[in-house]
């Protein structure tokens, strides 16, 4: 019996020839991503560095495991609380004393996008991140999963992590991608089929003939949502697009890994995307997806393109294409928060920001923004390109969050209600 991509990467990280789903492994980590928030005293009164320092003292060691493999990003700029500001200060102190790469200012943006754009994510690697959406990186054919604060301290000290090798669900994407369907539509449909805990502690492996047509940006968006199906990770096979992209952003060597033809999958899901309709998730959980026609006419107060899920250059291009020469509905706040400053500057160069400004969309700095900060009043309705629509996620618990692709968000912003973006796309 062969192995899946995830099993192969886990075996290599554990230093063994082979592993099978369900095996408990002690794996060596290739990269550790940490968002600045973990350094603030939000979760522990001592903060990440404080707890880490204690461990160092007790263990009688002086340095973090491997500074070249630790990447920190400031996800909120400028800091909006003293606590966060002090956390960022401590992150810099940590980097000064132990070494680590820090992205801030115009080098930064939303951490998960920065990790990818700056070439820290390579095919075949075993990556953990101190944020639940670290699963995003699987788009580039690596193993990547989110870990908690305490585990992060453990990795800083030892470079290792305990893990149960996940069984795999093979999602075969067949057919031809219609031009108005993006990763978000596809993943919302898959999640609806799987159900809220449909991929619990499993890996979602994408494959099939349609994969070649799915852009890296869309793959990132799809892997980003893996944690919302409670998957441990999601992964795309390395192909021409992957290799081209990685070579653009890094000179580092890497070894791509493919699943064996006789790899063992716990279950399979087949989806032909040829006739797909745009998909939207109703408030509550991201697996509440249905074809957009089920939601037509739902009035909205806010339209948001942002988050580590969908605010990349592909998304900004789509939004600008739809909003060009149009104006956001007077009853709607439209907020656009680019994925990173790299995406922000690229969009400016392409004239996209000017189009968005003219349409009355409000542009913000690149950061997590209103995905993690309240912006919705009681009873308000938002359509978001983000990943979470839980009660209270973006403000009042009674506010409602619908999830959709950036095209659906942009078109709905013009109409003041949820619409089918295909009617708004220029021919």
């Amino acid at each position: 019996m062969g192995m899946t991509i995830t099993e192969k990467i886990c075996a290599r990280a554990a230093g063994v020839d082979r592993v099978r789903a369900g095996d408990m492994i002690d794996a060596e980590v290739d990269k550790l991503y940490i968002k600045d928030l973990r350094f603030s005293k939000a979760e522990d009164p001592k903060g990440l560095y404080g707890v880490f320092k204690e461990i160092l003292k007790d263990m009688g060691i002086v340095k973090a495991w491997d500074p070249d493999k630790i990447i920190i990003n400031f996800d909120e700029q400028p800091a909006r609380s003293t606590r966060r500001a002090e956390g960022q200060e401590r992150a810099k102190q940590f980097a000064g004393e132990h070494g680590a790469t820090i992205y801030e200012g115009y080098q930064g943006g939303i951490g998960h996008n920065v990790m990818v754009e700056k070439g820290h994510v390579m095919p075949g690697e075993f990556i953990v991140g101190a944020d639940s959406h670290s699963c995003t990186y699987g788009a580039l054919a690596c193993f990547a999963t989110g870990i908690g604060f305490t585990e992060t301290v453990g990795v800083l000290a030892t470079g290792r992590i305990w893990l149960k090798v996940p069984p795999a669900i093979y999602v075969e994407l067949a057919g031809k991608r219609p031009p108005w369907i993006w990763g978000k539509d596809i993943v919302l449909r898959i999640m609806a089929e799987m159900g809220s805990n449909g991929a619990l502690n499993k890996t979602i492996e994408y494959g099939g003939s349609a994969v070649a047509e799915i852009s890296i940006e869309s793959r990132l968006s799809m892997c980003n949502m893996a944690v919302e199906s409670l998957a441990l990770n999601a992964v795309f096979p390395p192909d021409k697009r992957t290799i081209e992209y990685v070579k653009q952003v890094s000179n580092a060597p890497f070894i791509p890994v493919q699943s064996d033809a006789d790899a063992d999958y716990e279950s399979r899901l087949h989806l032909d995307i040829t006739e797909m309709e745009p998909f939207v998730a109703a408030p509550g959980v991201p697996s509440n997806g249905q074809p957009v026609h089920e939601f037509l006419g739902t009035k909205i107060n806010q339209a948001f393109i942002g988050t580590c899920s969908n605010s990349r250059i592909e998304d900004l291009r789509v939004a600008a294409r739809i909003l060009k020469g149009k104006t956001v509905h007077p009853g709607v706040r439209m907020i656009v928060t680019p994925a990173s400053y790299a995406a922000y500057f690229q969009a400016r160069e392409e004239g996209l920001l000017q189009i968005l400004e003219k349409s009355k969309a409000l542009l913000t700095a690149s950061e997590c923004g209103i995905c993690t900060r309240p912006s919705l009043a009681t009873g308000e309705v938002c359509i978001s390109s983000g990943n979470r629509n839980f009660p209270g996620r973006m403000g009042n618990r009674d506010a409602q969050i619908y999830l959709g692709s950036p095209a659906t968000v942009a078109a709905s912003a013009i109409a003041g209600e949820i619409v089918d973006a295909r009617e708004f796309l220029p021919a």
Partner: protein
Amino acid sequence: MKRKFIGKVWKFGDCIDSGNIKGVMAGVDPEFHLKVKPGDLVVAGISFGMGSSAEDAPRSLRDAGIAAVLAESISNIYLRTLINLGLPAIECPGISTLVEEGEDIEVDLESGSVLNLISGASLAFPPFSDHTIAILDKGGLIPYLKSSLAGQEKSATLNS
């Protein structure tokens, strides 16, 4: 940590994300922190602890003295974090129909069983691995690392 214990059950529904668990289940029941007593148990439906990895959510349950969390299914990060904080997190399909709120149950981590002391009904779950038990015994990952790495240092010294 006790490997076998009895506790009173508080029941919650499906798909409660960590944002709503924060502050001792404050998003679901703002009064819960006043009702819960050390040694009590949280029983929930599917996808418990889904969403953000922010550790304030699991820590709030630990700090309230919850002895264990049992659910139909638990998000991977949330489950790992609870264990790394020294709090048993148990996936136990069928648990939400095995018990009613306020009933006492007995949990045995080593044999992997839950017994409803009122109805006498029981359920099995996969027993905890030695590694997980070792982490729980030490009270979490940090104390476990401290002791095991300090132990390694000592044996290295003895061998030299």
